[in-house]
């Protein structure tokens, strides 16, 4: 019980410090790729949603492998939960 109270206070202190100390700072990752995407995505892909433009055009391999992972996990679920009456 005592340990939980200590952990809770530590959690809250960390959270409060994160919320109130880093209040007004705006930390954006200043990468050239992000700038390029934001400026050019409409011209390149004709999509209005930047996220769709990225995952269907610039980063196509990402979504291909994401669906591959889903396929693999479905196969795994089917094989692990195998039962004898499954054959018919």
């Amino acid at each position, binding site marked *: 019980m005592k340990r939980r109270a200590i*952990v809770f206070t530590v*959690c*809250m202190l960390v959270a409060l410090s994160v*919320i*109130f100390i880093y209040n007004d700072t705006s930390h954006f990752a200043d990468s050239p790729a992000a700038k390029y995407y934001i400026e050019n995505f409409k011209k390149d892909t004709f999509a209005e949603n930047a*996220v769709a433009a990225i995952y269907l055009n610039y980063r196509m391999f990402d979504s291909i492998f994401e669906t591959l992972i889903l396929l693999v996990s479905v196969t795994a679920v089917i094989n692990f939960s195998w039962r004898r009456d499954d054959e018919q």
Partner: protein
Amino acid sequence: MTEKIFLILMVVLAFIALNTQKLRRSVIYLGIFSLVSSFVYLLYGAPDVAIAEAVIGSAISTVLYLVALKKYRVFTIYYTNANYNQIRDGYIIRGRAQILREVESFFVRKEMEPQIIYTTEDYKKVLAEENFDLLIHQDYDQVRLYGNAEDYQLDALEAHMCENPNELLKTEFIKFEAGDKN
């Protein structure tokens, strides 16, 4: 201001969901956590992630948690008290402080899911009609526990209660055979 309140709520919810003993409570806490977090995503300008969180958090992940919880055995405990006519919060809290918390933590340690049902019906009626694993009947400091004789978990509970006796309460075990009930 709004986002700060919701962020603090998220921290509190995550802490509680990790620290409850009963797993079905933490399913509910995680449901609220996903609700709040999807609104925080909206506040930070990520509606795509918010929709995904809304759909997955409200329907699919709840189902998966519950399927995992199905593996646990649920131990149904009825709690009746001879001195009260109506159930109020104070009655529940007093009952928990006296005996229920001990029984509950015993079953949690044995990796089972205790489900406590508070009722004002007469304990004889519950004994005759309902389907239960353990019935606790309290009359001031006299506590009687009714249970099935074949259930070996109850033997363990009895041994545990004998080892750590409560100073204020007199506990007494009454066991019946499986065929007796109906």
